[in-house]
């Protein structure tokens, strides 16, 4: 299987051949930064296009199909439209917080995005507390949402922000506990290590029952954390018009919009990495030929394939279910998901201690 580490190492050596170490590092950091931001945009566009098409399929519609082949250029047009739209400033808003909020949301999203291992050797932020860092940075997003709700000085926005505060922070708990369940199995928090340890079997198969429960809980909690239906209460368009981003327009709104979709991708990407092996192909012990065939598929295809599959699962959920109510959403978390995931953690401990996993 092709290792992208070869390319990065080659660039590194080439830069070192005519400049000092410090300068080379700076240039590499800038290159990686540009790469991440470009990838972020590409992913956002793919996700929005996918959302439109998937949703259209569920709703007996066609979706965008006029601009470009299969409507693919539509997204580009939308981005241009969004960029050229006026950003309306609200007279009685808290200007500083109001303008700051979308950047905090996008910052949290980009930081979490950089943790994902996209393929063999394509890891941007990869250190021994990777999962911890990802959880920490993605939870900064809630600050942005709260600031947006508060800074807009709009009653709907404030209700939306209060809801998101209650919801996103609660669901962080069960999402973290379900990730912890798998960390028990791997005894590492580094993403690259986690992927490497799934070389024989993916964790969802290796950890069987507790891993599967953790996977389901993670999907529910992750979905709630990124405010997508049926947990889209902070924006709940039929109740609060647009919730916390009611007052945002133009590219400020665009940042929220893009962050929402990429957060979905991140949640799916983490689920794919932790439970479904990340970029690791499907290997079955003993089937050498099969494994060799699987290795021919590039790692990046594996990663995006799995992630988009999980995204599709989440979209399926969103476009089928009605929205929950705020008390129901908190009941679900505190009375069901947290006890179940705690118990699940205990089961996983027993499984690991007695080596009951595959």
């Amino acid at each position: 299987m092709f290792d992208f580490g070869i390319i990065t190492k080659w660039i590194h050596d080439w830069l070192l051949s005519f400049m000092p170490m410090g300068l080379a590092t700076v240039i590499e950091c800038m290159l990686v930064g540009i790469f991440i931001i470009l990838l972020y945009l590409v992913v956002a566009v793919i996700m929005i296009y996918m959302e439109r098409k998937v949703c259209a399929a569920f709703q007996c519609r066609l979706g965008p199909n006029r601009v470009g082949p299969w409507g693919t250029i539509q997204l580009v047009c939308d981005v241009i439209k969004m960029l050229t739209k006026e950003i309306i400033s609200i007279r009685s808003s808290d200007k500083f917080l109001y303008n700051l909020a979308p950047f905090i949301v996008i910052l949290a999203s980009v930081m979490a995005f950089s943790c994902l291992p996209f393929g063999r050797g394509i890891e941007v932020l990869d250190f021994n507390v990777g999962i911890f860092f990802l959880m920490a940075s993605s939870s900064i997003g809630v600050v942005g949402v709260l600031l947006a709700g508060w800074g807009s000085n709009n009653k709907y926005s404030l209700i939306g922000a209060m809801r998101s505060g209650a919801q996103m922070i609660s669901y962080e708990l069960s999402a973290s506990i379900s990730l912890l369940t798998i960390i028990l199995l791997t005894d590492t928090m580094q993403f690259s290590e986690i992927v490497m340890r799934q070389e024989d079997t993916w964790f969802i198969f290796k950890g069987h029952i507790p891993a599967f429960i953790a996977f389901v809980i993670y999907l529910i909690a992750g979905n709630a954390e990124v405010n997508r239906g049926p947990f889209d209460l902070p924006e709940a368009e039929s109740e609060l018009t647009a919730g916390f981003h009611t007052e945002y327009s133009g590219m400020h709104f665009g940042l929220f919009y893009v962050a929402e979709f990429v957060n979905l991708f991140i949640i799916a990407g983490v689920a794919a990495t932790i439970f479904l092996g990340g970029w690791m192909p499907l290997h079955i012990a003993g089937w050498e030929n099969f494994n060799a065939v699987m290795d021919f598929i590039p790692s990046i295809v594996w990663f995006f394939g799995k992630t988009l599959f999980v995204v599709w699962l989440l979209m399926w959920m969103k476009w089928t279910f009605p929205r929950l109510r705020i008390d129901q959403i908190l009941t679900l978390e505190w009375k069901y998901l947290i006890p179940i995931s705690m118990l699940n953690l205990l089961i996983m401990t027993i499984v690991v201690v007695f080596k009951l996993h595959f």
Partner: protein
Amino acid sequence: MEDIIYIEKEKFHDVALEYRKKGYDFLRSLTGIDWGEDGLGAIYHLENTSTKENIVLKTLTLRREDPHLLSVADIWKGAEFNEREIYDYFGIQFIGHPDMRRLFLREDWVGFPLRKDYDMSLNPLRMSNEETSNDTQFIEVLPDGSVIKHRDLLFDNDEYVINIGPQHPATHGVLRFRVSLEGEIIKKLDVHCGYIHRGIEKMCESLTYPQTLALTDRLDYLGAHQNRHALCMCIEKAMGIEVSERVQYIRTIMDELQRIDSHLLFYSCACMDLGALTAFFYGFRDREKILDIFESTTGGRLIQNYNTIGGVQADIAPDFVSKVKDFIKYLRPTLKEYHDVFTGNVIMQGRTKGVGVLSREDAISFGTTGGTGRASGWACDVRKRHPYAAYDKIQFDEILYTEGDCFARYMVRMKEIEQSLNIIEQLIDNIPEGDIQVKLKPIIKVPEGTYYSAVEGSRGEFGVFLESRGDKHPYRLKFRSTGLPLVSAMNTMCRNAKIADLIAIGATVDYVVPDIDR
């Protein structure tokens, strides 16, 4: 022509209370009238829900400056909004009414438009925004006969009041609620109507009878056919016209198609309000088929202008029967799909069961007819109470639930679609031959008298009250709105519910705003 019992205004409250104790618990309609020299007054249509007896009461005051009548809002809760409407239109102040404000018109409106001596030039088009008033008044009469007005506040200054509407995705039009919140919990709800008020009743007074028909379709646009049916029936009753059997059948079938159309739209919108965006499209996809059927016969899709006085505009299209049959065959299995995708969903049931409960007593007292009343266990179907058109010839069940919550209201409407399909199935093959239009004089004049007739609209009893003085214009034409009792009950249903429940209640109560505002 109905028998009207006249009661002096001083005794009115006591007499009304007596009738209430005799079992007249449902205030069908409350109409204010300006009789000119003979005074300003109101006509009360009452019904005893257990014996189905009807009586009509009348009271009036001769004073034109600062007229007063006694309020019956403490006897029938539904009177509260109707009395506000009369205050708005005629300036009659109701003593003992808890909240004597204008209902539809602006606070700064000059004069009372439905009075016969109203001067239109007093109210030029105002370009300024209306200030939301937080004041209300309560009028009390002292033992010595003098009247004092108490000023009252709607909301305290430290309450967190948010506006839901007039431009809000879940109010299905331009209805506005002012909601006082404590966290997510609704403490008080105040309904503001009138954003789509067109003064249809006032307009009708200067139109000829055939012209008034055109306006009924614009009331409840999801019951366009039924509304017009009611007005045609009322005028036909007044003039003593017998329409042919064929017309009766066609009208019945059209009414039921319209009901299915409305209930499919109800399903779609309820799904969307609860956040199930996909189910929304299913309902709209199938509603389109009904609209196609309408279009081929009537030429209209939403507004059909089909009924006329003494008949219908045109005969049914040649493929009408076959198209309707195909549709029935298509819709039955599709309804099962609806239930699979939405009704059985655990989130949907959690959101609607036990939410927004309206008791049977309250439902009758508010006069919330239609699906809302039947979900509370009140058999209020006009088709059964006072059969009209071809409804006495067919078999169908009146769907009754007893829970009175959102889920019951939803299920009543879903089951009613099936009943409507049954009704159409019984009629569609036996449409008798006959004229589609009775020959009438070119100028229609209705004999003197007062007339009331009602149909079961898509969301309740739609009544037409007509007072004629023998002219070619109605002297007073009042439409009993199906939606006004529904919104008047919102405050009761929403107390201590959450914001999300308000949306669920609004969706399942299924009001249509142009019908409220008229």
